[in-house]
């Protein structure tokens, strides 16, 4: 029963975020907005895009994004989210991050891991991921694409570096 509820919640949340993302000036989208509003909040999280199912849903994973200028962005994801999901769901302000929306056709979600964390990652990068990483700026031996890293509960407290971009130059 609880499992089924989670599934429903998961679907609704995804729908809410989808409509939030397509929110536009034109009035036709307002009906979508209304639909979101009529759904009473289920959790105290804002518009989470969650794709994991079942009992793992509630498990928070703390993640810190470290900008090249030293700024730390502390945030949370759920088990089963990718690091790209974490950036999108938490509205983390990284211009241009995730341009291809996780379809492995760009390298804008490039993240750099600490060696120890990198070695513990459950899956090695596929050829296709490495192909994209090869086009990234500031490629390192411990670089991965955020869209390919799925959070597990062991990753709680993970710190990843975001390569220097124009964002950092500005906020420095």
């Amino acid at each position, binding site marked *: 029963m609880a499992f089924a509820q989670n599934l429903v919640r998961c679907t609704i949340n995804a729908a809410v975020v989808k409509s939030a993302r397509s*929110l536009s000036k034109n009035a036709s989208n307002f009906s979508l907005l209304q639909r979101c*509003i009529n759904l009473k*909040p289920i959790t105290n999280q804002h*518009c989470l895009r969650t794709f994991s199912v079942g009992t793992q849903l509630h498990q928070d994973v703390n993640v810190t994004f470290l900008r090249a200028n030293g700024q730390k962005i502390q945030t949370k994801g759920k088990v089963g989210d990718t690091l790209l999901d974490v950036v999108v769901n938490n509205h983390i302000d990284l211009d241009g991050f995730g341009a291809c929306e996780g*379809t492995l*056709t*760009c390298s*804008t979600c490039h993240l750099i891991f600490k060696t120890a964390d990198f070695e513990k990652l459950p899956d090695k990068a596929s050829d296709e991921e490495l*192909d994209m990483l090869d086009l990234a700026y500031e*490629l390192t031996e411990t670089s991965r694409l955020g869209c390919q890293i799925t959070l597990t509960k062991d990753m709680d407290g993970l710190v990843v570096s975001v390569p220097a971009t124009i964002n950092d130059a500005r906020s420095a």
Partner: protein
Amino acid sequence: MLLSRSLSLSVMTKQLYFNTIKQGLSTGVSGSGAIKRICIVGGGPAGFYAAQYILKHLSDCAVDLIEKLPVPFGLVRYGVAPDHPEVKNVINTFNKTAEHKDFNFYGNIALGKDISLEDLRKRYHAVLLTYGADQDRQLNIPNEDRTNVLSARKFVAWYNGLPGAQHLNPDLSGNTVAILGQGNVAVDAARMLLSSLDALRKTDTTEYALEALSRSKVQQVYLVGRRGPLQAAFTIKELREMLKLPNVQTLWRPDDFTDVPAQLANLPRPRKRLTELMLKSLSEQAGSSSAKNKRFLPIFLRAPKAIGENEVELTVTKLQNDMAVPTDQTEHLQTDLVLRSIGYKSTCVDGGICFDERSGRVHNENGRVLRDAVSKTVDPGIYVAGWLGTGPTGVILTTMNGAFTVAKTICDDILSNKLDTSTAKAGLDTKQLHRVVTWRHWQRIDEAETQAGKVLGKPREKFVDVEEMLKVAGL
């Protein structure tokens, strides 16, 4: 109405609420200072990414983007291969930018024809040129203008439905095509020629191109480069895709790789991985299936010398400091059709632009356009980004970063008063222009294209005629 409803929102929709307020106040509200008016010329990725950055980082600004065509997105729509739909996801971000209250899209306005740069500079504090590179480089060899020589740029424009390219009518009745050049455009063209039609039917390749490709007799495609495997211009993703293409056998010339293995260890990772993939494919080709009936045939160290009736004459080259140097040996390559794919170049569309004809781009210093090529002084208030400023290289990421950087320069110049924005500027008077396409109009075209595509089982069927686009837009 929008606002009062939003006030009852709960915590969960806080972000929506915030956005709603922003959207709700979309007319007539500005800060106390004069509005900083910026005009971007060209609605491709460079233009949209620059707009995104400026709208986010500069307060009290209005960004107008003018585009020659009635439709936005430039090479994302007309350059990115139809079988790479994921790459086009960047459009979702561009759509968000277009919905920003301080942004306007004005299509069907050509700089240098409908409006002059001088006029734009009177109406805006800053003008950013991002109209890209829409011509191609020539080989400058004998018989290049023969009918069996097409530009790969035009071929790409043809299958992607660029207005004006629909009548290209490439002759695909021969067995062999030789593509001169080895960049990703060349590989895209090769893949389109060698892919199965069933795969392409699910893409937004224009119907007339699908029809012509269905009658194609092309069985093998050469990809000719002046330099060696270590200088190959295509990226690894595109090569891997070719190697996995069903029913296509890739065959390399072993002699091209003689010196390559010895140099592998010293290569940076991206070049090393690309080279390893070529070597792996080379090592497997002896035993590879000959049941595959199409062939992809990369050739290195050959420079086009002349075009013949059913052949290309190639000069054998050798490498000196990574450059191709001609030898006195030549080779004749039999081919029915030649596609020239050695790069794009920009054109000067308005006499007011300080344009470098030789390099085919605008004279600039980090995106600030120069007054003239000699004095190297900056012409305040005019900027350039994307291929028009950098030349035609790099992937969308490169263009994005470049556009963000130039956009930041514009913001910095305004904030540091290097660029005077104290006097109010009028912006574009669209009433004085004929049949201006707004974002709303484009959405109608977009919807009609998507609908037409649905019937055919593809993401969209593009209108290729400007008049038809304008009619659908209701203009």
